[in-house]
């Protein structure tokens, strides 16, 4: 007779084949689903590129390579050339880097290396907040604060001191290439500061202590033990920031003066690829539209090259690659035959007293240098956070009185008027933004999540590298191009929907998708192999390991990634500019135009609007800023909750 225990075991074993079969089917389904998501994304990417190419083909045929150098944009004559836009783009981005690299790096060094420890987290948070401020907010801050300041103070000063020899000539207009470069620099600074800080913090403590134990000051420690290993990460952050600057449309169009010319001086108005698209696309037809598409194609090619380059550099640093970088390796190839300077035999001791005598002499000087670096870093941090402080203050001063009224959130926009206006609210843009971001999340979060899972858990080798790079390229794609793509694609197949809530939602989902996918992939990769293996060893099927163990292990990182994507979408202007149309009224159907927060602000400051709309736009700005603060706080909190749970 069998004991009842044996019977249990037999019955249990009998269930195994069935469970295994079921798990295999579910596993296949899971794998199929995630594959489909990645394929969908890749198809979208390919479609995006093909569409841009096809739309600009007529212009490419007409002007060939000459388009790149053509200096004119004569709509009436139908003569188009990209020269001034390309030059303007490169010039403003270079100016942006000249501003943002020292400021961002200084802020990063301060918040990672030299500030008192209790202050570091707060500093980093404030700087990072700057990266979340929507570009439309920077745009009007630039108009209200930066342009007058440049016009009255900086530009006259530059004209007096540096003058023509340095490319500063003409009148101080305020709206010119230099100002565009500065606002792009302001916007690029938080990216450089935040990512460089991560690269600095990734350098292990032992390295710093090794330098400290040699008697290095804090600054010397940063220089010899930290900046070198963090170099690829810092370079990556700079190139990534460059990618953003190249593709920024909204802030540039506000301050650059929008003149199609090779700027003869830094103080002349000009244009960039992205800003010329904003400027001209909505009422362009025929050949001009084709030429604008070619501008978009050029912009896409430049930003894609830059973004992929940045990611390659960042990956190198993330993979912990050590040793001198490629440049140093190349420089280091000159071979030193032994040490020609050696004159005395080892152990002769004749040489040491000289070294020992140096110690006290140098210490004061080294400390002064370290102190100067601290002062510079504090100054850099000040410059980095000033725009944020200034624009928050403006938003509170001008927007608080409106935004504190409860009816502000429930009333529709007031009719435009000049005097004795009735008070209205921004319920329509709020409702529109909620619906658009909701629709976008509905599409982008599941698809992005699945694509990220496939990439991290199943994709191997070339496929993984290639799709990773495509995602990287699309994380940094200029959003104005997304708007262009969605609008024109609808125009071709469903012209009635080209300016509708559904088009806007899809544009935002294209914006969010790569962000979510990347965040997922990165989050999944942080779950250690040992965790996966121990789950597999317990007999967990592969997909259960992924859904239960791996996703569970990095839940908060996923939440953070999604939150940041939502934040980006909620503040987005350029992708919606052509796609949502314009209406002051509330939502009236997915196939109808809809208003949204950021486009409303843009419209109120630039379009035909009246003082009461401008006032409401200030209120809307404040609401957006508060929203960004809330999102970043939520992201922080959700990340912190894991950090606590992580074993030391």
């Amino acid at each position: 007779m069998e004991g009842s225990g044996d019977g249990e075991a037999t019955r249990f074993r009998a269930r195994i084949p069935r469970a295994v079969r079921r798990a295999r089917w579910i596993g296949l389904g899971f794998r199929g689903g995630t594959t489909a998501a990645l394929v969908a994304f890749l198809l979208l990417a390919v479609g995006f590129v093909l569409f841009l190419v096809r739309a600009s083909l007529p212009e490419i045929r007409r002007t060939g390579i000459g388009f790149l150098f053509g200096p004119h944009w004569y709509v009436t004559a139908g003569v188009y050339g990209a020269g001034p836009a390309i030059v303007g783009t490169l010039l403003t981005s270079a100016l942006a880097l000249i501003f943002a690299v020292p400021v961002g790096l200084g802020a990063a060094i301060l918040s990672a290396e030299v500030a008192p420890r209790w202050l570091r987290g707060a500093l980093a948070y404030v700087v990072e907040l700057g990266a979340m401020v929507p570009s439309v907010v920077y745009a009007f801050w630039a108009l209200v604060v930066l342009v007058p300041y440049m016009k009255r103070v900086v530009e006259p000063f530059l004209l007096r001191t540096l003058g023509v020899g340095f490319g500063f000539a003409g009148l101080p207009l305020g709206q010119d290439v230099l100002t565009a470069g500065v606002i792009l620099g302001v916007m690029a600074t938080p990216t450089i500061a935040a990512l460089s800080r991560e690269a600095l913090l990734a350098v292990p403590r032992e390295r710093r202590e090794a330098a400290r134990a040699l008697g290095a000051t804090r600054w010397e420690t940063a220089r010899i033990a930290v900046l070198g290993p963090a170099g690829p990460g810092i370079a990556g952050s700079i190139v990534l920031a460059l990618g953003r600057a190249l593709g920024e449309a909204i802030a540039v169009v506000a301050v650059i003066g929008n003149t199609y010319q090779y700027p003869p001086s830094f103080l002349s108005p000009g244009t960039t690829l992205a800003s010329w698209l904003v400027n001209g696309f909505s009422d362009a037809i025929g050949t001009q539209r084709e030429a604008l598409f070619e501008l978009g194609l050029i912009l896409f090619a430049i930003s894609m090259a830059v973004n992929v380059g940045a990611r390659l550099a960042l990956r190198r640093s993330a993979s912990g690659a050590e040793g001198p970088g490629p440049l140093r390796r190349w420089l280091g190839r000159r071979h030193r035959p032994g040490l020609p300077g050696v004159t005395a035999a080892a152990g002769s001791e004749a040489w040491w007293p000289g070294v020992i005598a140096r110690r006290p002499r140098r210490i004061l000087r080294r400390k002064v240098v370290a102190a100067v670096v601290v002062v510079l870093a504090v100054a850099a941090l000040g410059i980095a956070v000033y725009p944020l402080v200034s624009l928050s203050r403006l938003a509170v001063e001008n927007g608080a009185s409106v935004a504190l009224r409860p009816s502000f959130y429930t009333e529709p926009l007031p009719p435009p008027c000049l005097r004795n206006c009735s008070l209205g609210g921004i319920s329509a843009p709020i409702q529109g933004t909620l619906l658009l971001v909701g629709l976008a999340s509905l599409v982008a979060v599941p698809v992005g999540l699945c694509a990220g899972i496939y990439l991290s858990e199943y994709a191997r080798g070339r496929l993984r590298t290639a799709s990773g790079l495509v995602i990287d390229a699309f994380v940094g794609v200029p959003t104005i191009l997304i708007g262009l793509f969605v609008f024109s694609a609808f125009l071709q197949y469903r012209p009635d929907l080209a300016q509708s809530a559904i088009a806007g939602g899809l544009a935002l989902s294209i914006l969010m998708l790569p962000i979510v996918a990347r965040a997922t992939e990165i989050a999944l990769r942080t779950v250690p192999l040992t965790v996966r293996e121990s789950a597999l060893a317990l007999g967990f099927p592969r997909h259960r390991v992924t859904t239960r163990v791996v996703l569970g292990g990095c839940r908060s990182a996923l939440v953070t990634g999604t939150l940041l994507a939502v934040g980006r979408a909620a503040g987005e202007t350029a992708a919606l500019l052509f796609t949502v149309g314009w209406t002051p009224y509330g939502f009236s159907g997915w196939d109808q135009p809809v208003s949204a927060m950021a486009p409303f602000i843009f419209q109120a400051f630039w379009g035909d609007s009246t003082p009461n709309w401008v006032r409401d736009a200030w209120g809307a700005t404040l609401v957006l800023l508060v929203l960004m603060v809330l999102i970043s706080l939520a992201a922080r909190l959700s990340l912190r909750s894991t950090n606590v749970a992580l074993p030391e």
Partner: protein
Amino acid sequence: MAAKLDIRELSAWYGRRQVLYDLRFSVPDRAVTAIIGPSGCGKSTFLRCANRLHEEVPGTRTEGAILLDGQPIAGLDPIALRCRVGMVFQRPAPFPNLSVFENVAAGLRLLGVRRRDELDQGVYEALVAAGLWEEVESALDAPGVSLSGGQQQRLCIARALAVHPEVLLMDEPCSALDPIATARIEALIAKLRSAYAVVIVTHNLAQALRVSDLTAFFYLGKLVEFGSTDQVFHHSQEKLTENYVTGRFG
């Protein structure tokens, strides 16, 4: 033997938590002093007090004093102190983006040595002293991290020796190395003792026995026994020490 380091009533804290209690002993010049004890008993903390790295960790505190040649180190400039008291860590930590040559030259450059011949001479002497010269003579421009683990550790020793310290603190310098590399470092320590005061923390009792002249046994942050290595290992005064060195706990 003259006392190089004089430890007087030294106590140390991380936050509220006290990890060293009232240590008193002297480290002689031109000798190897081993510090043994179970992990977590404060050995590393003691070394880090001796070159004032301890105070770099936020929230830490010390009481009492360490005298270097009769001078309290609290009164010295930390930079000057660390030039006189070198340190080698458990995990070899060459500066990853610097070549072998530049790793060793790093300390000299900090001191403002710029002339090629001075740098060459200093690096040469340090590499010879660390017993690494023959092995890296033809690879001075290779990255420091391209060397083997044992070579990296000797590179770190050379880096510390290049600024000509008087005391060399070594925190478990062999615990990440294989036996052959360990033997090399031990031979090196035997050589260094003629010129430096060496303080070595080790988990390996046999190593303490092989390389050291004096041994201090730490337990739970207190100095249990201090004396010649032979005495501590073979004629211990304390029951605790005897149990530890005979492997009855640890």
